């Protein structure tokens, strides 16, 4: 079993709260979390709806392993239609919130409609109520978290919350839980705020049980932990340096997008790397990194917990940023750093704190600021637009200013909050937007890593590294090494990563386990926890079914094969330095083969035969 088999349904329009049993037929076909909640969304909403209208629904969802002793099994996802991309959105987060939801007894919380007034949802096991949030509206995520804890006089309540950015309509607003973990991408926080829902606060004390075969379960989960502990990436690299272990590696292979992807290597990479976070600052005698930390149940512990020098210009005389908080992941260090040409580690860390404080996706934010900096250097944006700020590449002051006005939804920040695509269109230079389907790129340049270009182009939620992380194979040799500059075989590689990741995201565990785990390690843990036979083969079919269902949702929403592309800069402008010098991304060589291995038409539409093979 492992599912609680209970769904909480909250209609924000009329305030009704009901419960219903989980659809177990769907659970058998879609496992849980990402897959299962997407199935619910597909069945219950119109894909052409306005993402920010009451017609859109937002589902918070755990997986069958969430809340169990399987390593990293504390995950939850938020599934909805994205206001940034118009595609399906599924954003995954760690921290403690997912476990609390499962412990309260819920596989899923479905939020529909729109509340007439600001509210927050308080759940205490089987008791759920909508409480007024007029006094919380306009507050940051951090302030809201503090006030809800104080109001309920319960430090053990776990809270997921939106900040000021979401209230002001920033299209890449996140939902932050436990102060610095986030369902980050695609604007899921914007959807939550559009429903006048400020927070979901949960206290769960019922326990997670229903393990199908406890003896097998403890054996399988212990085997899994051993594999993670003995692996060089999950056992050593990630705990020591976090995802920031990648900064120097990706720069060296010539795939670190720099200054809005104008270049592929950053001269300041070593200054903002994981290694740099360990160096003692001259100014205050402390390192940027205080310690590593873990999300619920995680035996890897890649979280960075960091401080900024109290005298650094970014936080001087602002004591709320002087303590420890969530530090830099590779993605954030890249987007706020290299992509903006900024090599000031303290400034980037402070900008990341601001993203956490007001629940904003730092990838989209950094990439949008990078686009704005290029627009400024090209003269398309001027100091008249910015109110005097010189938005120049490399300026830490400009980075902090742009971050602050965006996360608070003030002035020019409202324009930045529309994302790179809309910003570049507005200022007449759409070609400068480094996006796919309206979502900003993450930290790998597809000229130096060819396969990830295909993964970006075909990702169901727009440009994203977490929908098919071929970097593992192309750079790190996991599970086997492929040549990052080759295009042969990448179609099959991308499909394999996409399908396997859909399973991981549907189980309740973290994608980072796949640096060490394959489905052969994961399936026995699902199999022992859940009823029925969950072999690696069945899991792969479930993964492919989920991927194809998401594709069908996007097609129905009006996003087609024409949108499976990359910006011209990546397809035409060759890399200027590094191992990929002279290369652009050869998407045209990979995409037709990808459609073929997926069993889709040349236009990128799943054939009837494929749909019927997958039971769609």
């Amino acid at each position, binding site marked *: 079993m492992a599912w609680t088999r209970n769904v909480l349904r909250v209609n924000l329009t009329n305030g009704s709260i009901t419960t219903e049993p989980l659809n177990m037929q769907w659970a058998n076909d879609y496992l849980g979390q990402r897959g299962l909640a997407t199935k619910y969304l597909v069945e219950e909403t119109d894909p052409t709806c306005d993402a920010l209208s009451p017609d859109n629904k937002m589902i918070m969802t755990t997986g069958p392993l969430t*809340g*169990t*002793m399987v*390593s990293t099994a504390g995950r939850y996802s938020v599934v909805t239609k994205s206001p940034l991309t118009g595609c399906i959105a599924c954003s995954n987060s760690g921290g*403690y919130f997912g*476990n609390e939801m499962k*412990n309260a007894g819920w596989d899923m919380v479905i939020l529909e409609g729109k509340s007439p007034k600001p509210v927050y949802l308080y759940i205490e096991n089987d008791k759920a109520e909508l409480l007024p949030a007029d006094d919380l509206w306009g507050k940051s995520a951090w302030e809201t978290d503090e006030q809800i804890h104080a109001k309920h006089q319960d430090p*053990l309540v776990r809270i997921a919350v939106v900040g000021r950015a979401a209230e002001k309509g920033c299209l890449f607003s996140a939902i932050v839980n436990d*102060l610095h973990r986030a369902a980050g991408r695609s604007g899921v926080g914007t959807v939550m705020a559009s429903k006048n829902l400020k927070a979901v606060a949960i206290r*769960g*004390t*019922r*326990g*997670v*049980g229903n393990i199908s075969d406890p003896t097998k379960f403890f054996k399988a989960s212990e085997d899994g*932990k051993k594999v993670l*502990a003995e692996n060089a990436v999950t056992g050593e690299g990630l*705990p020591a340096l976090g995802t920031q272990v990648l900064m120097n590696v990706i720069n060296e292979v010539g795939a670190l997008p720099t200054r809005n992807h104008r270049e592929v290597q950053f001269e300041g990479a070593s200054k903002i790397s994981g290694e740099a976070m360990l160096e003692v600052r001259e100014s205050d005698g402390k390192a940027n990194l*205080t*310690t*590593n*930390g*873990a*999300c*619920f*149940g*995680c*035996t890897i*512990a890649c*979280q960075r*917990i*960091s*401080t900024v020098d109290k005298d650094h210009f970014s936080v001087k005389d602002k004591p709320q940023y002087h*303590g*420890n*908080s969530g530090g830099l992941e590779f993605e954030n260090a890249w987007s706020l750093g290299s992509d903006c040409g900024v090599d000031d580690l303290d400034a980037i860390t402070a900008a990341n704190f601001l993203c956490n404080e007001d629940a904003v996706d730092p990838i989209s934010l950094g990439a949008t600021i990078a686009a704005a900096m290029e627009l400024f250097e090209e003269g398309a944006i001027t100091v008249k637009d910015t109110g005097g700020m010189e938005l120049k590449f490399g300026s830490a002051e400009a980075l902090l200013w742009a971050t602050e006005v965006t996360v608070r939804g003030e002035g020019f920040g409202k324009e930045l909050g529309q994302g790179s695509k809309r910003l570049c269109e507005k200022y007449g230079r759409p070609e400068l937007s480094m996006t796919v389907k309206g979502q900003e790129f993450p930290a790998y340049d597809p000229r130096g890593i060819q396969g990830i270009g295909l993964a970006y182009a075909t990702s169901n939620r727009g440009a994203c590294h977490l929908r098919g992380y071929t970097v593992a194979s192309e750079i790190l040799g996991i599970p086997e090494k492929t040549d990052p500059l080759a295009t042969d075989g990448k179609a099959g590689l991308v499909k394999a990563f996409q399908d396997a990741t859909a399973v991981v995201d549907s189980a309740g565990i973290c994608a980072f386990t796949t640096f060490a785990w394959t489905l052969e390690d994961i399936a026995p843990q699902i199999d022992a926890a859940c009823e029925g036979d969950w072999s690696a083969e069945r899991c792969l079919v479930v993964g492919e079914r989920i991927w194809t269902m998401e594709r069908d949702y996007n097609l129905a929403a009006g996003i087609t094969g024409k949108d499976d592309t990359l910006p011209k800069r990546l397809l035409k402008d060759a890399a200027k330095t590094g191992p990929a010098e002279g290369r652009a991304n050869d998407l045209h060589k990979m995409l037709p083969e990808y459609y073929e291995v997926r069993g889709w038409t040349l236009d990128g539409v799943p054939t009837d035969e494929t749909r019927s093979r997958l039971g769609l």
Partner: protein
Amino acid sequence: MLRSLQIEPEKCTGCLQCEMACSYQAEGVFNPSKSRIKIFTFHDEGRFVPYTCTQCTEAWCLHACPVEAIVINEATGAKEVIDDICVGCKVCTIACPFGTVNYNQETAVVQKCDLCGGDPECAKACPTQAITYVDSDHSGLERMRAHAAQNLPQDNA
């Protein structure tokens, strides 16, 4: 030989595997809210600290109990709650200076660490050895060793 739980907060990552292991052993479900060991997060300081019963020799909880529901397990040294005798008066929860005895509203009796009968699940579940189960007479052994190592002559290192 008596053993004690040794806690080294600087090694804790806040993963709560110990809380799941403890609650599963005691309750048969993964339920951190019923764990006898708790991890505290000090956000601003960037620290995680495990905390549980230290099994005092002169146990305040045991002396405070009006019905003698808390007894010493001679084999492990643990102060154990006899559920059938406990009347849920909670005087022990007041008496304990460290807060490690707590009332359980579902069972209507108090709960505290019993060292799992001499094989504590929290220590086995901890992935970073922040919780270990060591000889009670030498709980400082590893720290002594670490400090001793600092005095080794450099050329012999």
